[in-house]
């Protein structure tokens, strides 16, 4: 079988067998277009990428990210232009991290699935018709579910406060929806809301001065400051904290990064977790073959973040049963022997107890409030353990569930 004909025949047979044996199941490279307004959502983006990685996507091999932001504007035309640029890039999915961009994305005439993260209320914002069957090839994660509960936490953390100041931007849909939820909750809880818009004319946009004006001129009768889901307001969190520290007012925010910036506590979505939720939805669409419109809008997981350093500065004692429910506690640096400055440490596992004594520095700053005095004795040892524990808790457990 060495004649040319025979050789040619063998080659043909071998080629046939090789082609028949080849599996042909190549790994597909998905392209995800990403857009956000500003870098405030960077943690969400990071956690989204981490979530994709945890789900088995390898950047450059099975997934490619095209970041076309930040837009630095919520202008509909600019948003539409950026989104269309992503569509022109033939992305397989668009991931957005802002209500305004999600609204723009939902208006696109495209079959490309869209996943959003951390939109306050996609139904009220007109992004989708309903949560269970969003349709429009859009799905995502909302976070506007915790305002009433946040206010309830506020009443437990600062039980003497009866009048809550709420500055807000009336042109921000999220802010107005957030305010409405807060007011409803206030009615149930029997407390007073002191709301103040940054502009009296709802047709006029607020300037920075307008915002500064309402965040620095806190009403004299306000007992606490409740920041709504309003990016303009929380953008001035340092100014708010200056006023709050001066008047020893507790401040509540919706996002934990602002707690790290000095607010007393937050009960809401965790930037580091919401991206992971969006990643799972993305995986269900890309690899699971599920239509985005068939995936119910998910509610963001909720975490309670408490800044004990701020509590100490405003002379507020937070009872143990509250601390124990927190997912993350920022403790005063002076109270930890080996903790680094500004360190964020996780809350203790709920059922772990230690017999650590209260450090003098911390004890000096913790002033039990009237309502919490009765629990002070029982809580003091646990508060101490929370303060003394950082050196025992690894940093990587900072996002661990309570």
């Amino acid at each position: 079988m060495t004649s040319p004909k025979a050789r040619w025949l063998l080659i043909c047979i071998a080629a046939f067998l090789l082609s028949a044996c080849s599996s042909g199941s190549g790994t597909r490279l998905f392209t995800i277009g990403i857009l956000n307004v500003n870098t405030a959502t960077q943690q969400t983006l990071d956690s989204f990428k981490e979530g994709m990685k945890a789900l088995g996507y390898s950047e450059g091999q099975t997934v490619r990210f095209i970041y076309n932001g930040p837009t630095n504007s919520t202008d509909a035309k600019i948003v539409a232009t950026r989104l269309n640029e992503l569509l022109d890039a033939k992305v397989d999915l668009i991931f957005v991290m802002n209500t305004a961009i999600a609204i723009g994305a939902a208006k696109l005439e495209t079959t490309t699935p869209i996943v959003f993260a951390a939109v306050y209320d996609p139904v009220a914002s007109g992004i989708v018709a309903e949560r269970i069957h969003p349709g429009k090839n859009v799905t995502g994660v909302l976070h506007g579910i915790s305002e009433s509960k946040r206010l309830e936490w506020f009443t437990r953390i600062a039980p003497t406060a009866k009048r809550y100041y709420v500055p807000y931007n009336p042109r921000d849909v999220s802010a107005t929806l957030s305010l409405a939820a807060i007011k409803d909750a206030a009615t149930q809880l029997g407390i007073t809301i002191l709301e103040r818009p940054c502009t009296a004319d709802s047709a006029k946009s607020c300037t920075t001065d307008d915002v500064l004006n309402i965040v620095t001129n806190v009403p004299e009768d306000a007992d606490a400051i409740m920041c709504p889901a309003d990016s303009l307001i929380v953008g001035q969190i340092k100014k708010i904290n200056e006023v709050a520290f001066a008047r020893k007012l507790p401040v509540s925010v919706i996002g934990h990064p602002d707690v790290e910036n000095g607010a007393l506590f937050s009960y809401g979505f965790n930037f580091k977790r919401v991206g992971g939720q969006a990643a799972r939805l993305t995986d269900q669409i890309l690899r699971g073959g599920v239509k985005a419109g068939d995936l119910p809008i998910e509610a963001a997981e909720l975490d309670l973040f408490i800044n004990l350093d701020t509590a100490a500065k405003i002379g507020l004692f937070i009872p143990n049963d509250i601390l124990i429910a927190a997912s993350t506690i920022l403790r005063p640096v002076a109270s930890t022997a080996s903790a680094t400055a500004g360190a964020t440490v996780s809350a203790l596992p709920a059922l772990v107890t230690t017999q650590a004594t209260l450090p003098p520095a911390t004890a000096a700053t913790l002033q039990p409030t009237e309502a919490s005095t009765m629990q002070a004795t029982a809580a003091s040892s646990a508060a101490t353990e929370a303060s003394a524990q950082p050196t025992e808790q690894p940093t990587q457990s900072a996002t661990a569930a309570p």
Partner: protein
Amino acid sequence: MTTHQQPPSSRPFKGVAVRNSIRSQLTLAFIGVSFIPLVLVGLTLAGLTIIAQREQAISRERAVAISLAGQLDDLFQRVENEMAIAVKGLSSQTDFEDTSVISRLPSFPDTIQSVILADANGRERAHIDRLKIVTDATKTDWQYLKEFSIPLQTGQTYYSSLAFDDKTGDPSVYVSVPIFNPRSGEVHGVLISSLRFKRVWDLIAAFPVDRGESVYVLDSINRVVAHVNPSITLSNRRFTLPASVGILADTGLLGNRAVSSSRQVVRGTGSATFTVVAERDLGVALELAFQTVGVIIGLLIVAFLLSSAHGFAAARRLTRPIAALAEAAEIIRKGTDNFDPRTVEPIMLRTDELGQLARVFRNMGTEVKVREQALKQQVQKLRIEIDEAKKEKQVAEITESDMFKDLKAKAVAMRARSSTPRPVIANNQPEEERSSP
């Protein structure tokens, strides 16, 4: 030339028509001998491959179902354990302290939506919720609800049926743990947790599956309560698993042919039964087997072509000399003049029986040709002799006839008269008359 009516399938040699040629028969025989065993072997291998692949697919789905069922069971067990620990810490405490204890549940608020501590009368002593504000107005009387009454009466952990939130679609199931009075041993309260079944959805969504594979959970009334596609769950779809495995596959959840396996998770002393199903589309599950069958079919086609070519060539090698000899015989039959012994000489070179036959045939043909030529010469010679004899006989017949004799006599008489002088005859008499006798 002899003519025969040919059947359509027969192929005559040059000048020779045959029915059922040896060549066709030999070709078919060669193909049959070489190809049929291959077909049998190929079919056997293909069948075994499909069966083996199917068994492997079922084993994999069984492992997947067991793995997921284990995770699901662990999730329930973890919540029950936490509740049991919380229950131990509840004894002889105030409502406020009890609230503090139940708020320490590690699964709250990630896995547990709300926790209710009900006394022996079904009244809420403590209630925490991850979303809703709990006030006295929102408290519920649990006395007549199964979530309270069953664990109170049986002293066993109870799981309610799955419920979906109308607005969000979030699924939840109540897990109720009885609280015993350590002194009397009687149940004096129930700890009720609303378990976020969405954790199971998340578990399934993150569960690693292969292409064409899906996992889902059925409850005790065959509702699909967890699936990677929530729309299937939210559409309240029901699916009954087949009682036995089909010959090759079962009907899958989406109506497709699928290889599947299931595993039950029983909780709450039988109050809740979840069936974890892992299934894989038949086409994908047996893809490797089908590829192997494709290769086998390809090999069989190649083998068929090769054996056909080989059979055809072998038959041709055998029948071509025969056809040549038959053609030479036909030529001889018509006459040896056109017979050329050199036409069979290539066959004579063969060392087999056909070569021997060709040599004999060549000799035979040559001898026949020589003899025929000799015979022809003899015939020619005889024919000449016969012709001459015939002529002599004919001459004799003529010369011995009465007429010839009469004419001969007349001729003699005329010759005799011509020797005597004749009178002059006028010239105007026609020539014919003059020459006539």
